[in-house]
């Protein structure tokens, strides 16, 4: 594929209005890589959730703190890396939103959506603070939710 080895990087300050900037990059990249509108949309949504968490829970809406996103395309694998300057968290403590006692909660579905739309979702925490999230998606396998998960 001609776009192999592609790497795009974007840095934003921690404002909700900027989420969309990272989301459109993700969607455009996916469409450039030949994914259909739906497939691109679901990946864009995973990115939206990841960036929202980085801004809200990571950087706690401090606009001086940055969120960095990189997109890499190798063969047909898209790797998305999103990092913030926050204090991290323990992914093991995150509840399952499908658990009946969580069903009616007003939050707690962001990571679940990321896992639904992406093949892999993996957190790493830097010693100096900061959350680093790596998500991957094989674009050749069929796009997102409708075709692969339902």
């Amino acid at each position, binding site marked *: 594929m001609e776009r192999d080895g592609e790497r795009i990087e974007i840095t934003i300050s921690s404002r*909700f*209005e900027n*989420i969309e900037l990272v989301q459109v990059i993700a969607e455009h990249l996916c469409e450039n890589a030949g994914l259909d509108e*739906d497939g691109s*949309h679901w990946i864009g*949504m995973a990115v*939206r*959730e990841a960036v*929202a968490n980085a801004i*809200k829970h990571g950087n706690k809406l401090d606009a001086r703190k940055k969120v960095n996103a990189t997109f890499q395309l190798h063969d047909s694998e898209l790797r998305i890396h999103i990092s913030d300057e926050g204090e991290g968290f323990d992914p093991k403590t995150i509840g399952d*939103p*499908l658990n009946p006692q969580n*069903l*009616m*909660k*007003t*939050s*707690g*579905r*962001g990571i*679940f*959506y990321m896992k*639904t739309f992406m093949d892999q979702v993996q957190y790493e925490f830097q010693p100096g603070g900061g959350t680093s999230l790596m998500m991957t998606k094989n674009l050749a396998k069929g796009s997102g*939710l*409708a075709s692969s*998960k*339902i």
Partner: protein
Amino acid sequence: MKASSKTIDGVEVIKLDGKITIGSGDQQLREIITSAINQGKSKILLEMSGVTTIDSSGIGELVGSYTTVTNRGGKLKLLHLPAKLNELLHVTQLITVFEVYENEQEAVKSF
């Protein structure tokens, strides 16, 4: 997000248009529901066909709206779900919580 409402046979039909996402639309939705309830409305039908984007915060706010209305003895139902919103409610099993209609008349009658 924009909202406009009309009353049909005692049912408050609120049409939501645009984004219901974190920081834009999510709080608005809460305010809309709160104000409808404060005006004594207890039968609320959200017309969703104009919702262009929703994220987990928007979904959470829909759940919160449902709970708020139900706790006050009212009913909140959904009309005309866009395909993507439908899928988001499906994967989170919230589709089992909401009554969803494809026809306004039918939806209004169901209250």
